[in-house]
């Protein structure tokens, strides 16, 4: 199949640029559209049954802002800096706690390094009920969980972030039931950052009439951000659409602690480095890191800190992780070295050496710092390489970070310490996620592989090969995981959805799966890190890694790349093309798998046995 180039328009000037207008970006504003395609290409069969596409919601790509000059004959060799942009990602929110089973596993199962051994054998569905009942009773209250340690039981017994720092205790709310709202009114703002806000006229009615367990979706596309009710029959009519003048929203997250039917806290990270805290029900927002005052590089990933009402973590493209408080103001940021709390800390050589080797994270400002009047609350510099993704472990103790240089860092963020440093096979790491029991970390990267890392063993346990291009997003399916079997899914730039099953037992076999045993060669490799390739044809020897390294620290933290021959390769149980464009995000809900692609298609694939909505065509078999 040929992919034809955009229609050529032979230029009057220059030898380049016969390209014409970019076909992906429309010239005029269009609306979202909803469709229900049917047919064999819209369903797939896995062990547990057939997943069928329920609907395809296509978000409209906004046209360029009127102030932007139309690009008629773009010079393909133009070296002008281009702003960052990301594909469509979706944050899902259910106001009802039941739909979020990742909570389930925090409670009953044994955690890594955690002495909480209660009810290990509890059946997942039982514990779900217990969590559910806990949640639904607390759901409507707004003061349920704050930064105070005592109430973090529901989320595992990890201490709260910043616990012990008296300066971080949030000012108690005067009216216990009311949440603080952001400062500015979005619809009435005259900020030039926000171009337009379009609110559905019947928003209030829609909010009261909708089912309590319905899903909301928040999605970014190009320079727009949309709030959509996935439980509505007319979901293509967004509840709110925000159009930014130039900035693209790259990432976002919803706070699961503070959500209620009258209050939702959303944070959005932008290509300008700025962050917006938005409360959609009151339509208010606050702009943080304005003009990049704290960090001027784009925000590649943003998440609320688990258990926190106010604190969230943003990864900037200069390799920094910055903790912000949604209610604090911006200020000029003076880096504080961890050693002395004074700028230009005095630790000198040792720290620099280990920092350059990447075995320590540079705590530019500690969460325990006394200086907590303004943002940032904490700031860590991992390296100078772009951070592509990070994820908090379900037990709230660890943070896994994937970077552009192919490194995976496991960090104890409460202690602000680097625990492990892993490397991809090659290429950068693009996505990270934790298993629901916090035992395994998955990374996807530019080597087309998904790597499974065991946290307890500090080792790579398997490489999953199935994608035909770079992996964009990985997620576990908690409804299909138990303590021995794990199901996870991934999407990639090949437009494919892959589902994988792995089994703990299978991984512990000495030479698992399809490893080909060539003793003479594989035994020579203990670590690829030190293997020098021969420069003359005559020498076949590999310098067997001298594990006595100059820097002792490195041994415990940094782990060399494992050769291919020693790691099991896992094939997918499903490898399905779900889109003609690169896919960028996926997630699992109780009823479906939801995927999104770069061109704005959000597709919901019903799980086997889920009835399609009445009115849509029934599929046989």
């Amino acid at each position, binding site marked *: 199949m*040929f*992919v034809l180039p955009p229609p*050529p328009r032979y230029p009057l*000037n*220059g*030898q*380049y640029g016969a*390209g014409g207008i*970019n076909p992906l970006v429309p010239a005029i504003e269009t609306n979202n559209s909803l469709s229900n395609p049917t047919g064999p290409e819209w369903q797939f069969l896995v062990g547990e049954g057939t997943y069928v596409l329920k609907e395809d919601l296509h978000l409209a790509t906004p046209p360029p*802002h*009127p*102030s*932007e*000059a139309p*690009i*008629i004959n773009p010079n*393909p*060799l133009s*070296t002008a*800096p281009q702003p*960052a942009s990301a594909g469509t990602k979706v944050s899902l929110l259910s106001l009802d706690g039941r739909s979020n089973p990742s909570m389930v596993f925090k409670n009953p199962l044994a955690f890594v390094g955690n002495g909480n051994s209660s009810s290990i054998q509890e059946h997942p569905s039982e514990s779900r009920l217990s969590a559910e009942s806990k949640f639904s009773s607390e759901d409507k209250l707004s003061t349920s969980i704050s930064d105070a340690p005592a109430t973090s039981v529901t989320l595992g017994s990890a201490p709260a972030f910043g616990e012990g720092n008296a300066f971080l205790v949030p000012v108690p709310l005067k009216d216990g039931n009311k949440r603080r709202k952001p400062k500015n009114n979005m619809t009435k*703002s*005259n900020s*030039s950052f926000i171009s337009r806000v379009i609110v559905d006229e019947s928003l209030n009615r829609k909010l009261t009439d909708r089912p309590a367990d319905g899903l909301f979706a928040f999605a970014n596309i190009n320079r727009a951000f949309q709030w959509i009710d996935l439980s509505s029959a007319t979901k293509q009519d967004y509840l709110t659409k925000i159009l930014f*003048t*130039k*900035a693209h929203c790259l990432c976002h997250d919803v706070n699961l602690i503070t959500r209620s039917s009258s209050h939702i806290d959303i944070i959005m990270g*932008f290509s300008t480095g700025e962050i917006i805290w938005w409360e959609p029900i009151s339509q208010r927002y606050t702009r943080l890191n*304005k003009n*990049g*005052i*704290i*960090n*001027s*590089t784009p925000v590649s990933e943003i998440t609320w800190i688990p258990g926190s009402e106010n604190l969230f973590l943003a990864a900037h*493209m*200069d*390799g920094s992780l910055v903790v912000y408080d949604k209610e604090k103001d911006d200020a000029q*940021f003076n*880096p504080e070295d961890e050693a002395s709390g004074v700028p230009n800390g005095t630790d000198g050589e040792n720290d620099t050496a280990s920092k350059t080797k990447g075995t320590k994270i540079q705590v530019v400002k500690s969460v325990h710092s006394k200086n907590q009047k303004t943002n940032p609350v904490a700031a860590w510099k991992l390296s*100078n*390489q772009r951070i592509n993704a990070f994820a908090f472990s379900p037990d709230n103790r660890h943070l896994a970070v994937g970077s552009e240089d192919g490194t995976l860092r496991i960090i104890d963020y409460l202690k602000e310490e680097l625990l492990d440093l892993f490397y991809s*096979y*090659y*290429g*950068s790491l693009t996505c990270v996620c934790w298993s629901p029991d916090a035992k395994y970390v998955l990374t996807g990267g*530019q*080597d087309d592989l998904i790597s499974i890392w065991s946290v307890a063993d500090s080792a790579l346990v398997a490489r999953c090969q199935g994608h*035909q*291009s*770079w992996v964009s997003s990985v997620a576990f399916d908690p409804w299909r995981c138990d303590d021995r079997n794990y199901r996870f899914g991934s999407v990639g*730039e*090949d437009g494919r959805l892959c589902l994988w099953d792995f089994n703990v037992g299978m991984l512990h076999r000495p030479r698992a799966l399809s490893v080909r045993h060539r003793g003479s*060669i594989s035994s020579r490799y203990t670590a*690829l*890190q030190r293997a020098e*390739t021969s420069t003359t*044809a005559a020498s076949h020897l590999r310098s067997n890694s001298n594990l006595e390294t100059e820097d002792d620290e490195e041994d415990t933290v940094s782990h*060399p790349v494992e050769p291919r021959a020693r790691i099991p390769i896992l094939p997918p149980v499903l490898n399905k093309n779900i889109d*003609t464009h690169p896919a960028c995000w996926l997630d699992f809900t109780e009823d479906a798998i939801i995927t999104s692609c770069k061109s704005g298609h959000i597709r919901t694939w019903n799980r086997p046995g889920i009835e399609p909505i009445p009115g849509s065509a029934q599929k046989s078999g």
Partner: protein
Amino acid sequence: MAAFFNKIKGGSTASGNQTAKDNAAAKKRDEQIILEMTPLEKMLRNAGPLREDGSDRFYGFENFGNTCYCNSIVQALFYSDLFRNSVINYPSLSPSDTPDGTRPRVNVSIRPPMQPTPPNPPNGKQKGLSSSQVIKQRQAINAGMPPPGQGPVRPEDKPDTPEYKKKQAMLKGPILELAQENTNAYGMDECTFTGLKDIFLALIESQTRTGVLSPQRFLEIFKRDNEMFRNSMHQDAHEFYGLVLNDVIANVEANAHKFKAQLENQQNGLAQSVENALGSAMAKHTNGVTTPGTGWVHDIFEGVLTSETKCLTCETGSQRDETFLDLSIDLEEHSSVTSCLRKFSDEEMLCERNKFHCDHCGGLQEAEKRMKVKRLPKVLTLHLKRFKYTEDYSRLQKLFHRVVYPYHLRMFNTTDEAEDPDRLYELYAVVVHIGGNAYHGHYVSIIKTQDRGWVLFDDEMVEPVDKHFVRNFFGEKPGMATAYVLFYQETTFEKVREEQEREGMEDIKLASQAASSAQEDDDKSPKASTQLKRQATFSQRATVDHEELGKLARTNTSPEQALSSPPIPALANHPIPEVPVTTTNSTSEPVEVVKSKEDKKREKKEREAAEKAEKQAERAEKLAEKEREKQAKIEEKKRQEERIKNLQQARKSESDELQKALEESKKLAKEENAKKRESGSSSPFGLLDRSKRGSKSMAKRSFSFFHREKGDNSHFTNGETNGEHSEGKDSLKDRLSSSLGRKKSTNILA
């Protein structure tokens, strides 16, 4: 010139001033157009002594009409250190070849640079142009509309286009012409190899880092030996690559044989047999090449593929080795190079008309064949098969499949016995094909140089680019530029880590710029904020130009940046519009207060000036950053820090003075409202002037004093109003200084 100077000094009548200045301005513009510093030159400004291995030369290659296929490939070959050094060192020189201990130099003639043709034919009646009108004209030219009274604008006269940049390169020179026959080419007959070696040597021996090389002789020889390339039609770069390598191999082997034969003829008796014995002992090469020192091409580029065929009838497997100099891989939409390579090694069914003749069974049988890599080369060349015949084989079509390629690579499809199957490769060159079909197109190459980062080589034009530029050619972007040949060279994990450390700092700068290019103005009133920002960026540029080394202290953490330059808001404040080079500018302000016509005009001029300058400065900034990082040394750092302090103070006091002067001029300007003409040359050039001259802030300050002393009101027109502080002042000074200063500076410096 002196008379002109006097005129300025004398502050003569307005109209007299105007015409004189305008003519001078036009002339200045010509000179300025020619003498603009390219981003490449800016990057190389403080590069130190020339290197002997040639790795720090950045020459463009002249295009004689569709010879870009040659240019892009030869550039990629030159920057492979392995290949370049091997070419230089072969054949090894005997004492007779090096009479004075050094290699004989290549016969290079330096072509005198072209005479600059003025973009505007001299026309006495031409009205003087104000700087903003010049800018407008420049934009118009870019967009294809000629200025009034001209014929159609030639592509190479539109500034900021590739054609223009190439013309600039040719004007600047030096142009190394390799047009002569090389009769005593290293003891060999003249052939492709010697032609290539001449090119490499010419570059290494050149006395400047930049320029243009004209590979005429090389192409003549190559075409002589390769009939298909004898026309001047578009050719395929990958085909050229294969032929060049094969020619080199053949030439080298032929030479080795000849050498051996000569030896045999010269010597006799015992001496000869000893020679032979020695020769044959030395000659054992695993590649099977039996003469010493000639296996290097194979060593670098050649790999071995094993095709394993399994007969489906009798199940016997047979293997056959074949060598390859590159891998041609089929492409799939939305795939990666990794995946395409994997498919390359997928099983192929040999059946129907394609049956396999099995020796065991006898006769044609169905079989399963797969190709795996048995030996990995040091330089892995991947040819993306973008040109495919249509189904009816009537013509070649170009595939625009999006195929992503990572910066590093390991091969999955190695055989079990392969040595070092996890060898790590790094991408070091990408040859890009631009065009809609296979018959017409342009090739450029983007190459990672040893320590100058990635550089774009587009025939005569050479421009540094950032690392992420390489990702623009996956295939889906408008502009029809797709990666066509990828060069990966082997590397080690350690080297990669080191490189990433070095790169990291640059990446941060780029990320900041990406952020700022998406930045919007803040919530202040539109007018004030843009002006304030413009002020900021101008001052910032001053910083870049004057203390590019000094800024290193600031790049460590961006907050520090904001700290150390109080008058300048954070970097991300640039209202840099995201416009590519060829379009008209527009501001980022959707809301505008209704102003008087004059005010609007003035504003627009300033805006345009600012934007033009911003773009230039952006690049300057970027490159200044690159350069800076690479030269970081502790002593320098200290020196820089001191300088920063000094310059900051200087700047601060400067801006204070500017403010005062500006307030003065505001009043004067109001009186001058009627006069729209701007004196002197356009400010963007002025700014560039400033950048060229480096830290001449002191000199400029003296001009401003000079200004005020003379109380020359006519210079204070257009642009000082509306509170544009240093920006207006700067452009003013520049205007003045460019008309004055250049001469003055030559007086001072000469």
